[in-house]
């Protein structure tokens, strides 16, 4: 599987952040499909392959999850907690991408299994910089877990 074409699941409820992040991805030259879900419930549905998400041709398992922590209905922390217990997907790399730089949030995110923690910057140049670095590392450099590579 070519990681450069692998899907990235983007869990984000703020349409502005979605639009800006997509723009940053495009400008950085990454072509990975960015699948956006707006709350924790949908994120779990997608990863569990429930309902329409059962169609893995249209909704493939992601090579990376970008997870906002403050989400409607089911929070990012809860998604993470669920994910780390879920068979088949529990090893998926998760990058928390959130507004909060508060240390209790950071600690809690790692406690429930985040692989990385990034704070959304104010200032588009900084967002571009962040997305570029993120892509270089998590898409181009990092090796994903075998089960995901094999298609779940």
């Amino acid at each position, binding site marked *: 599987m070519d990681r450069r074409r692998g899907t990235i699941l983007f869990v984000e409820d*703020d349409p*502005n*952040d979605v*639009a*800006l992040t997509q*723009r940053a991805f495009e400008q950085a030259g990454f072509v990975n499909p960015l699948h956006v879900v707006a709350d924790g419930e949908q994120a779990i549905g997608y990863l569990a392959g429930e309902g329409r998400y059962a169609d893995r041709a249209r909704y493939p398992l992601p090579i990376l999850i970008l997870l906002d922590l*403050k989400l409607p209905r089911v929070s990012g922390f809860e998604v993470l907690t669920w994910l780390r217990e879920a068979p088949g997907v529990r090893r998926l790399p998760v990058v928390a991408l*959130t*507004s*909060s*730089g*508060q240390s209790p*949030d950071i600690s809690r995110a790692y406690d429930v299994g985040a692989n990385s923690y990034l704070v*959304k*910057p*104010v*200032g*588009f*140049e900084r*967002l571009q910089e962040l997305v570029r670095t993120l892509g270089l590392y998590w898409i181009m450099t990092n090796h994903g877990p075998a089960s995901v590579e094999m298609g779940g």
Partner: protein
Amino acid sequence: MARKRVTGAAAARMAEEHLRSIGEALPTPVTRCSRDLRYLWVSQPYADWLGHPSEEIVGQPIVDVIGPEAFEAIRPHIDRVLAGTRVEYEAQISFRGPGLRWIHAVYTPTYGTGDTPDGWVAVVFDVDDRHRLEEEHGRLAAIVQNSDDAIVAKTLDGVITSCNPAAERIFGYRADEAIGCPITIIIPPDRLDEEHEVMARLRRGERTGHFDTVRKAKDGSLIDISLTVSPILDAGGRVVGASKIARDITERKRTEAALKELTLTLEERVSERTRELEEINAELDAFGYTVSHDLRAPLRAMDGFAKALMADHADTLGSRGLDYARRIVEAAQRMDLLIQDLLAYSRLSRDELRRERLDLGDVVREALHGLEDEIRTRSASITIADPLGTVLADRATLRQIITNLLTNGIKFVEEGSTPRVRIRSESRGLMERLWVEDNGIGIAPRYHGRIFRVFERLHGIETYPGTGIGLAIVRRGTERMGGRVGVESNAGAGAKFWIELPR
């Protein structure tokens, strides 16, 4: 008054001798004086009392021996005895020799051959000691009479023998009613055992240190009292009775109860207040979370989309449109700075600090590392007067404080001049003082008190950008670590900021 006259000189002399031998045999001071106010003879006790040998007294004028003051005092009595009256008096007189004494004197006229007294015999009792005892007794009695505490004496059988006015007032019995009655009239039935116990100890001669108990008044009401029971001893040291001193402590008991009640409500109020504060703290945490999450999201959008406009639609926007978009970006970035600083400030006020011994040089270099870009952009020159001292501080907080001071030092310079910042430290007693000195625009002394407050800015955003929180963080952080901050500066002459922390 018929009196048998002795006739004849021989008989008179005999009588005189007789009188003298009786007088001299008495254990009391006795003297015989003549009508011309001289001593005819004195008994040995009399001579002893005046403190002179009798030879020096006999034949002398009375006034010369006892002094004019005493003589004046007894003169009226002498006049009366010489008028033929027996005189008896008690007076306090200041004698030359014995000094001021209470005496009890009896003057008896003597008759020689004539009908008028030829002199008198004076018997003098020195009653000074008795008077003093009486005075002392009077004083003690007055104390008992005037005491606010009830004082009741009783026999070993428990019969009341005396009681003072306070006892009458407190227990409601008049003294004449109470005396002769058993003490049990003022003891509630359920306290009789206590009385037996007290009396048993008393017979053994023990005093009962004061204890709180209850007594019964004549009208049946119960009175809280503090009681002391002491044995009354006779001259031989035998216990013959007891004195009870009772203090009415109804008022005190009431105060104690009120105080206890107050303490209880106070505790309740404190714990309630603590609960409230905990709630407020939790709310503040939630508020901080909301601020950091939600308030910044719109800013990212403002900044991001304004920049997207500038990048993608520059030709349609025109120069004015581009300027507006740039202003939106700047406003968003300033707002973001404000939020970040506010968060840092509130975190600083609440977070637990971990104090450790830190080398100021290390922390200063950490802070400089974080400011590398800014220092390069402004071509600022920073010098450190090594070695710097050590302090007890929380590393992250201290780094933040030093960063803010350095940022200020670099920022507030005249346009076009190169910022020069000098860092040094000095020991002051138990504290280490870190100086951050710049060559900037300085601060007029009248602003020195204001600059450490939150949101105080002395300059417009255009001239010197900033949030007005940097120095507030410096102060709050330093004070939380047990230190102080200060500044020495004049307008246009650079500024010397200092922080002082425990060494």
